[in-house]
C-alpha cells in the first residue's frame, strides 16, 4: 500500500484578492499589498520629494551655509494610543502630528521633518485609515512639516485598538535659543497659553463609558506657530512645556524638580472653561491633572512677562493666555497653590490613573 500522493495544490495561494475595504494581515507583510497600501494611502497624502524617493530612510541635507556654529537638533518620539480614534476637535492622526511637533517646539526648535510608524489592526476599515491619514496631512500642513519616512505593520484582529501611531520628529534650534526645564529662576513668571483640561474631558466624554455629554472640543493643535511668534518677540524665554497627560500640575512639578525651584500658582488666575470645570466637579476630578494637547506653559523673567503675554494673546492659540504664578526659591522642587481664600496647598504630580470618585 503506497502513501496517498500529497495534494500540493491545496497549499498554493491563489492570486490575492484586492482588499480595498479593510486592512488585512497581508498589508503589513512587506510585499505587494504593503507597497500598494503605501502608494495608494500614504504617499498621495504625505507627498514630498524626500518621501517619494522611496528609499529605506529619508535623506536630509543640512546645507553648509546654514550655520557657523554647532547645529543643534531637537528630536522627539511619541506613540499615540487613544480611544476613541475620533473625538470632538481631533483624532489620533492629528494627535500624532501635533504631539510630536509640540514636544520639539518646547525646546524652541523649528520642527522640520517627521516619521510616522503605523501599527494597524486587521479588519480596520480602509476608510477610517484614510480619514486618519488625511487628518495628519492637514495637521502637518498647519505645522509646516514634512513626513519623510514611515513604516506599517498589521497585527491580528483584537490587538492595536484599530490604530497605533508612532511619530518621531526633528527640529532645528535657532542659534541663541536656550530653552529648558532646568532654566527656571526664582522670581520668574509662569504663564499658560489658554484654558486647561479641554482635551482630557473631550476624550472622556467621547469614550462614552461615563455617559455624559459636554460641548467641549479637544484643543489639539500644533504650537510651533505660537512659539515662533513668542521667540520673535523675545529670546529670553527660560522654559517651555506642553502639559499633556498628567496636566498642568504634573508639568509644573517636573519643571520644579528639573530646576530645583519652587512654583506658586494662584487658583483664581488659572483659565478654565465653565463646562470643563463642571465636568470635573461631577466626576470629582481636579482639572489641574486633566490632559491638554494644544496648550503650553512658558516661564520667563518677570521683566518681559507682561509684554510676552500681550504677544501671546494676539495669536489665535493664545487668546486665553494668563499669568498664573511665580517661581520661588522655597520650598524647592514643590509646587504650591494659593486658593481663592488665601490658604496654600501642595500640588503633587499625578499619581496613577485619574478615577471618578463617589466620596
Amino acid at each position, binding site marked *: 500500500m503506497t502513501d496517498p500522493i500529497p495534494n500540493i495544490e491545496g497549499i498554493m495561494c491563489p492570486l490575492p484578492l484586492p482588499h480595498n475595504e479593510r486592512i488585512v494581515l497581508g498589508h503589513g507583510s512587506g510585499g505587494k499589498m504593503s507597497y500598494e497600501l503605501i502608494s495608494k494611502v500614504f504617499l498621495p497624502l504625505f507627498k514630498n520629494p524626500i518621501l517619494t524617493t522611496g528609499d529605506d530612510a529619508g535623506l536630509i541635507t543640512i546645507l553648509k551655509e546654514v550655520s557657523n556654529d554647532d547645529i543643534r537638533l531637537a528630536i522627539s518620539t511619541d506613540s499615540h494610543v487613544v480611544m476613541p480614534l475620533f473625538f470632538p476637535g481631533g483624532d489620533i492622526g492629528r494627535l500624532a502630528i501635533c504631539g510630536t511637533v509640540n514636544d520639539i517646539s518646547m525646546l524652541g526648535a523649528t520642527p522640520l521633518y517627521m516619521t510616522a510608524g503605523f501599527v494597524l489592526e486587521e479588519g480596520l476599515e480602509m476608510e477610517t485609515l484614510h480619514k486618519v491619514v488625511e487628518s495628519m496631512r492637514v495637521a502637518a500642513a498647519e505645522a509646516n512639516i514634512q513626513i519623510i519616512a514611515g513604516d506599517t505593520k498589521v497585527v491580528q484582529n483584537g490587538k492595536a485598538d484599530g490604530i497605533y501611531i508612532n511619530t518621531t520628529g526633528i527640529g532645528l534650534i535657532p542659534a541663541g535659543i536656550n530653552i529648558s526645564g532646568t532654566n527656571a529662576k526664582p522670581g520668574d513668571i509662569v504663564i499658560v497659553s489658554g484654558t486647561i483640561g479641554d482635551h482630557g474631558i473631550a476624550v472622556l466624554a467621547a469614550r462614552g463609558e461615563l*455617559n455624559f455629554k459636554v460641548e467641549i472640543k479637544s484643543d489639539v493643535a500644533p504650537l510651533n506657530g505660537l512659539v515662533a511668534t513668542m521667540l520673535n518677540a523675545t529670546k529670553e524665554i527660560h522654559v517651555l512645556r506642553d502639559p499633556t497627560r498628567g496636566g498642568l500640575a504634573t508639568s509644573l512639578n517636573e519643571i520644579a524638580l528639573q530646576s530645583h525651584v519652587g512654583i506658586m500658582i494662584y487658583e483664581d488666575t488659572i483659565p478654565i*472653561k465653565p463646562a470643563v470645570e463642571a465636568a470635573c466637579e461631577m466626576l470629582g476630578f481636579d482639572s489641574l491633572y486633566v490632559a491638554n494637547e494644544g496648550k503650553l506653559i512658558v516661564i520667563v523673567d518677570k521683566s518681559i512677562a507682561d509684554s510676552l503675554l500681550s504677544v501671546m494673546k494676539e495669536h489665535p492659540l493664545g487668546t486665553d493666555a494668563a499669568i498664573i504664578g511665580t517661581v520661588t526659591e522655597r520650598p524647592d522642587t514643590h509646587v504650591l497653590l494659593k486658593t481663592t481664600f488665601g490658604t496654600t496647598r501642595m500640588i503633587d504630580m499625578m499619581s496613577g490613573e485619574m478615577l471618578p470618585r463617589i466620596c
Partner: protein
Amino acid sequence: MCLAVPGKILEIYETNGLLMGKIDFGGVVREVCLTYVPEAKVGDYTIIHVGFALNLIDEKEAMETLALLDEISNQDLTE
C-alpha cells in the same frame, strides 16, 4: 463619603419604568435617575450622587442660608 453635585433638570421621562431625567451640571449634561424625587419638575435644581437625584434643592432655604451668612460676615466688618 458623598460627592453629590447640584444640577438643573432639563427633561423628565420614563425608561423601563424608571423615572429619569436629563440634568445640566453647568455645561455637562447627563441622564440621571429621578425615582427618589417624584415631585420634580423641569427647571428644578436637584442634588445628584452617582447618577441618582437624592433631593430637590430648596431655593428658599438656600437664599436664607446665604442671607444669614452674609449678615454674619457684615457684622464683623462693621465692628
